[in-house]
């Protein structure tokens, strides 16, 4: 049954419920697929073959015993390597954590396990989630399954590529400035950043604590919603977790309607710097939603233009502090411990050897921005901009239910093309960053292929805090309408990976 890897999570669930396939068969099919294509794609940093099959067997046994199981029980998943999984190597894409096996599960991982989800392994990412291309991984880049010479986005390029390459039907990403949505956009998959606090950060190796949000990656909106529901909800281990009921995202994905939905097109997200093919697919999608009954208006969010600079002060500031714990004392890499050098010297040498260039750049930026005498001008000012962006959103949501924009200004670029130009790299997240600064829900959904390069374009939907359901409802409506045109989801248009082993 080699086509098991082409099924959605919802379909796999049905196959298991009806007894047509076991979790072990499904898991093995995906492990085989990983073995076949991952040398070329490099989505995974670690494949937990034994652990995955063990989990699959356990689910099959429980099902055979008549146990009531959740909708994702037995479905395989790829886990971004920034979340701790007990006893499984966790690196956050960095040398400094090489060989570390965490003694505890992240809350997201614990919930996946409780839901019977089979964790195949850990996926590649930009080091400590700093990047938009996965090129900053200490373990080499991931390749976009649509074109192996192209980047798969970042920081969660591994998770998106694993889903796009049929190595897993589901993946977990984390989104600090777009790290779920931008990879989703450039790989033709669905990626949702839940409301900040809607999913737990406990066990997520922190990049920027006030922005980081775990969320789902999948090939369909319904699959993403099923995964979202499995991991979301209040966690007493995370003080910033929201103690409210999970928005009804699965029901919303099934409803898939924009009849009467008020949609605002963000005026400031388009024009100069946006690739023509991206804009074309975006506007077609907006027209399609209008035909489906949405009320579309243009909305101005004047402070969004300051989102990027504010983000690149807040993120490095928090990151410079969060990354201080990587000091060779208790875990991970240790360099220079020869019995002569001082602890401080060992710390310095370890951090010099263990961190990559982008990480060092952001630690320096953040250290500077927080320095006494500069704090008000940089960190303090950025927090004010953050407030202004939150007000832009609040005003916009008085007029409309959701806001939309392209997910990214461009499609996937060539590996190596922007590595020497951090600003060009940072521009990838222009559309996604405001949602992180405001903490609201947002998702990227496939909108078609750009004419000029034939690469996927993402449609970005933003909704108020704890209205994640609206993101899914609009995304699912677009997906259904486009699938009708295309005769299937966008992924079916992707060329088969030519893999020689």
């Amino acid at each position, binding site marked *: 049954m080699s086509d098991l890897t082409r099924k959605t999570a919802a379909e796999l669930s049905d196959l298991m419920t009806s007894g047509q396939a076991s979790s072990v068969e499904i898991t093995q099919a995906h492990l085989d697929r990983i073995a076949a294509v991952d040398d070329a794609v490099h989505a995974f940093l670690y494949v937990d073959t034994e652990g995955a099959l063990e989990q699959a067997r356990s689910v099959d046994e429980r099902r055979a015993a008549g146990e009531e199981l959740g909708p994702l029980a037995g479905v395989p998943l790829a886990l971004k390597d920034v979340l701790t999984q007990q006893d499984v190597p966790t690196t956050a894409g960095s040398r400094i954590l090489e060989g570390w096996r*965490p003694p505890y599960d992240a809350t997201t991982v614990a919930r996946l396990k409780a839901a019977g989800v089979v964790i195949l392994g850990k996926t590649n990412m930009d080091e400590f989630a700093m990047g938009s291309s996965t090129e900053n991984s200490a373990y080499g880049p991931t390749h976009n399954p649509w074109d192996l010479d192209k980047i798969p986005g970042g920081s969660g390029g591994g998770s998106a590529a694993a889903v796009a390459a049929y190595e897993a039907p589901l993946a977990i990403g984390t989104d600090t400035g777009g790290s779920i949505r931008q990879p989703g956009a450039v790989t033709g998959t669905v990626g949702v950043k839940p409301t900040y606090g809607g999913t737990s950060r406990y066990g997520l190796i922190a990049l920027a604590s006030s922005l980081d949000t775990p969320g789902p990656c999948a090939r369909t909106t319904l699959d993403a919603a099923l995964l979202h529901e499995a991991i979301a909800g209040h966690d007493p281990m995370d003080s910033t977790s929201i103690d409210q009921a999970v928005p009804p995202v699965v029901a919303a994905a099934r409803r898939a309607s924009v009849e009467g939905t008020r949609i605002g097109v963000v005026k400031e997200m388009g024009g100069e710097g946006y690739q023509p093919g991206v804009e074309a697919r975006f506007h077609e999608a907006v027209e399609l939603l209008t035909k489906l009954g949405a009320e579309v208006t243009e909305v101005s969010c004047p402070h969004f233009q300051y989102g990027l600079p504010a983000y690149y002060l807040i993120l490095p500031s928090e990151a410079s502090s969060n990354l201080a714990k990587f000091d060779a004392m208790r875990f991970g890499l240790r360099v220079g411990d020869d019995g002569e050098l001082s602890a401080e010297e060992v710390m310095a040498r370890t951090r010099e050897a263990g961190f990559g260039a982008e990480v060092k750049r952001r630690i320096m930026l953040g250290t500077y921005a927080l320095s006494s005498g500069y704090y008000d001008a940089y960190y303090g000012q950025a927090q004010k901009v953050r407030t202004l962006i939150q007000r832009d959103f609040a005003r916009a949501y008085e007029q409309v239910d959701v806001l939309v924009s392209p997910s990214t200004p461009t499609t996937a670029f060539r590996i190596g093309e922007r590595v020497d130009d951090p600003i060009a790299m940072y521009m990838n997240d222009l559309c996604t960053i405001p949602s992180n600064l405001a903490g609201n829900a947002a998702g990227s959904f496939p909108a078609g292929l750009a004419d000029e390069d034939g690469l996927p374009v993402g449609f970005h939907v933003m909704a108020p805090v704890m209205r994640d359901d609206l993101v899914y409802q609009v995304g699912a409506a677009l997906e259904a309408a486009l699938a009708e045109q295309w005769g299937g989801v966008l992924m079916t248009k992707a060329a088969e990976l030519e893999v020689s082993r």
Partner: protein
Amino acid sequence: MTTEVLDLESALERYDPVLGLEVHVELNTASKMFCGCPTAFGADPNTQVCPVCLGLPGSLPVLNARAVESAIRIGLALNCEIAEWCRFARKNYFYPDMPKNYQISQYDEPIAFNGWTEVAVDGKSYRIEIERAHMEEDTGKSLHVGGATGRIHGASHSLVDYNRAGIPLIEIVTKPIEVPGDKAAAVAKAYVGMLRDLLRALGVSDVRMEQGSLRCDANVSLKLRGATEFGTRTETKNVNSLRSVERAVTYEIQRQGAVLDAGGRVTQETRHWHEDTGITTPGRSKEQAEDYRYFPEPDLLPLAPSREWVDQLRGTLPEPPPARRIRLQAEWGFTDLEMRDVVNAGAQDLLEQTVALGTSAAAAKKWWLGELARAANDSGSDLNDLGVGPEQVAAVQRLVDDGSLNDKLARQVFDGLVKGEGTPAQIVEARGLALVSDDGALRAAVDRAIEANPEVVEKVRSGKAAAAGALIGAVMKEMRGQADAAKVRELVEAKLSS
């Protein structure tokens, strides 16, 4: 290395000291500030740790509500305002015993601020202004191995115990204290002593200076007499007893006086107090002030204690220690000196509870400050941890009061109590300590004493009544102390006058 010091009198002739005291209090909450790990003192190294207090990647802090409650009560007891809204902040610096390389603390938004308290020295009261009381987490503890001094200098390697990491701390900071120079050191000592009593009365801390649950950093600077501008200060750490507070402040006044007299400049630095030699030595120089890059802790929500809660906590405050001391001293009829002994021994609560059980104040003081204080001292433990409580002291005294024991026998009962031999009644039984109340046996002993000491009998009969003591002593000796001396005296006198 010898350091010049001025004699105190000369220093105070020319300079006025200005003090600032920072007291760190470890709270006695059952669990740590941001995780569920226990806080008990003395456990094996690194056995009271988890991903959170070890700062493992991905872990997050969750605030201990009990610690906040204690912080607010401390603030209220020091007449502080309680913040309506405040935040935690990260204090960033690298140190091996700090798991995250930042400390979760409070910076410009402390939970309590603008307070005051009073201390008495030599019968005069001094007002101490409180700048702030804020919450923070303790660090781990480094053990430097292989060096001669146990300090990092010269050590071959260091070990870190993270059991202490994350234990809740309250840091109480005074505003500059400017009191007459000759009182400065005594006021500092009295202030820390008052805080110790207050925190104990609040029940928020073990306040054991020797275990580090109460730690004082003393900031001292000198200014020319009558000047308004403060001089450069030093911060002396490792001041771990009340006596050390007084000595360290005095030493710094003398040392800085000598530096200034020689035309030198006081270096702004952290200094280390040495209990054994009675001096301070330089530690980390603070000339280049560390930049801690404070920013609001994004992993925790802002804290907004409701006014209702604050008012409710205000209702739980104990009687202020100075007022309580005055009240108890009057109730007990003690002199100032007696009361000071009780307070210094940390026995005020114990006495109060014992008296409440029907023991006279004099008797309670006799046992707690005598026999039991000695036993505590011998075993190096605290009076409160001796395993002997007010109930037992009252029970022993009842036996004395009803004539079953005399003081000498009672002391043996206390010895048994300290050694855990059972209840007072069981110890009396097991050790055979009951007084001989058999009149026949006593009368026979009296007869024998009179017979054996004819010259004493002669003296008594010739009017020297005091000589009867020797006869009583002889009887007590024969009865091995297990007789009621008053009863023996009665029998002796009756016999000789017949």
